[in-house]
């Protein structure tokens, strides 16, 4: 008993010394290859999907201190990939994302709120194609190894952001509703 008591005490002491409670629960190092931003939509009733290959994430998340959490996510709309080359090219044009004039879409949080049951809500402002709208995003974190994985989805109306104008504004062809799904993986703040 005595033999392993001392090492245990040392271990406990060093670990409490190394990790203050605040640091232990704060996650901010973005893991790009375990994160994604996808979108789902319908054209002529056909469920279709795509993703953004390029986006940057600044994130500080502390499950115990939602008020201290914040994020800024910037997406390169020119990196939209649907699996259909013609569509990817079309999305860059003026009628869609107009990537020359609006090279970035962004979401900036204003407030994190714990909803209970391990769920959170991020209030913030979403800007696509120069148009800004208030947005509330539900989010469910889970642990994966040492990292925290933040997952959620929310609906958008593409026409509110002027995405798909002119003849493309016909929602019988391409639906107005777009569902965005995200997974953001963060390592603990070192």
């Amino acid at each position, binding site marked *: 008993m005595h033999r392993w008591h001392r090492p245990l005490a040392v271990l406990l002491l060093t670990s409490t010394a190394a990790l203050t409670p605040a640091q232990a629960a704060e996650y901010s190092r973005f893991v790009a290859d375990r994160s994604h931003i996808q979108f789902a939509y319908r*054209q*002529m*009733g*056909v*469920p*279709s999907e795509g993703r953004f290959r390029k986006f940057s994430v600044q994130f500080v998340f502390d499950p115990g201190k939602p008020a201290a959490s914040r994020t800024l996510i910037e997406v390169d709309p020119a990196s939209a990939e649907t699996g*259909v080359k013609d569509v990817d*090219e079309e999305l860059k044009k003026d009628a869609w994302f107009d990537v020359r004039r609006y090279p970035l879409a962004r979401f900036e949080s204003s407030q994190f709120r714990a909803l209970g049951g391990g769920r959170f809500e991020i209030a913030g402002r979403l800007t696509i194609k120069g148009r800004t709208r208030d947005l509330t995003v539900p989010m469910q974190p889970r642990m994966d190894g040492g990292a925290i994985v933040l997952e959620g989805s929310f609906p958008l109306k593409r026409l509110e952001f002027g995405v798909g104008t002119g*003849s493309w504004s016909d929602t019988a*062809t391409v639906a107005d509703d777009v569902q965005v799904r995200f997974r953001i993986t963060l390592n603990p703040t070192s």
Partner: protein
Amino acid sequence: MKTPYTSTAIALHWLMAVLLFMTFPLGIYMHDLPLSPEKLKLYSYHKWIGVTIFLLACLRMLWRLRHPTPPLPRSMPDWQQKLAKGIHHLFYLLLFLIPLSGWLMSSALGVQTVWFGLIPLPDLVGEDAALGEWLKAAHKALNILLLIGVIVHVAAAVKHHVVDRDDVLARMLPFLK
């Protein structure tokens, strides 16, 4: 006309003929269009008609198994009888294979087929660009074969009516009688 075509067989023949004469030129017209809402619509219409033809082909095959076709005129030379039967069998084969190749092509190219925008068909193959291109070539080749078959089929029907003056066309087109 001892054993005429059933009215079901006649209806299926002409219904499919009309659908083919819609979707075939549509397929040629649409594939080179630049991407637009119009193109998405035309592609969907083409696929919806294709799925309809596929289902009608199934129905027609079942009907055909229980209701044999009336015999060809005895006056026809043997080679013509064989050619006529061969082309009819080819049509049955193509009316399955062409829609099937289109359906699989669509899945391989990452676009599910949803009949009338309401009824999704399962993707029998996963996304695979190389397979998609291969199926596209197959779809095209099979359609060229169909076009040749239809030209021979229509030319033969007209020849029977105008030159041979037999009832081969009239039994499929009763108002000619």
